[in-house]
């Protein structure tokens, strides 16, 4: 897959709930900085999925805009989710990606943490 296809697959696998395929997009040594946590390595990234699923049983993340240059991409995205307490959550934000050998090697996510204040702590 090229860089654009990898980023499109990132969102498609989230929204189809295919989290194993989603985790397969990352390099074994990938680093993900989601503002709240930094996950290092594929195992830590897989574990972060459990946290999302427990805190936000309904979770979708829609790709709104994408710009790709060489092995880097930035996506504008919109999270629409529901907490365990059935509180709706909407957050528009951005993801930055670095791709190496067809896998996501680094990713950083930028959202307003104020949007996530109502998410129950695990």
């Amino acid at each position, binding site marked *: 897959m090229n860089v654009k296809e990898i980023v499109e697959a990132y969102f498609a696998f989230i929204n189809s709930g295919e989290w194993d395929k989603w985790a397969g997009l990352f390099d074994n040594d990938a680093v993900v900085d989601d503002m709240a946590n930094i996950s290092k390595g594929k195992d830590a990234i897989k574990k972060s999925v459990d946290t999302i699923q427990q805190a936000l049983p309904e979770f979708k993340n829609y790709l709104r805009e994408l710009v790709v*240059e060489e092995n*880097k991409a930035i996506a*504008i995205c919109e999270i629409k989710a529901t907490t365990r307490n059935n509180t709706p959550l909407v957050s528009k934000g951005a993801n930055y990606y670095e791709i190496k050998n067809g896998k996501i090697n680094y990713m950083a996510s930028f959202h*307003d943490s104020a949007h996530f204040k109502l998410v129950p702590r695990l």
Partner: protein
Amino acid sequence: MMSTKEVVETYFYLVNIGNWDKWVTLFNDDIVMDEQLAGHLEGIGTLKGAVEGLKKGYSKFINRPLEVLVEGEKAMALWHIEAANAKGVPIDAKGVNYFIVTNGKISYFSNFHDTVPFKPFTDQNLASIE
């Protein structure tokens, strides 16, 4: 006419030398902006008004582009802001700007970042700042 990349590079250059009056000329008269702190803005007149708030509310404002990605008229920039409010309280944040550049001017702008690091700026009463 400047290319999309040149417009974005100039955007950061003018911010970092504090030339807000020249910075505002990079935008189209009909600019539409979705700014994380200021909300939805339309028109160059509204943007010029917002610039006065930036001049008063920040005693320091450095915004370094870490990555600038361009595809035609669209550009995204990953940035790192090191700033201070009017009283010198520090602000440190990273985020992303999205630009659409039409005929050498920014016609659409939005940005995405955590608002919490900007509380020293947003919690100020700008009217009380000389």
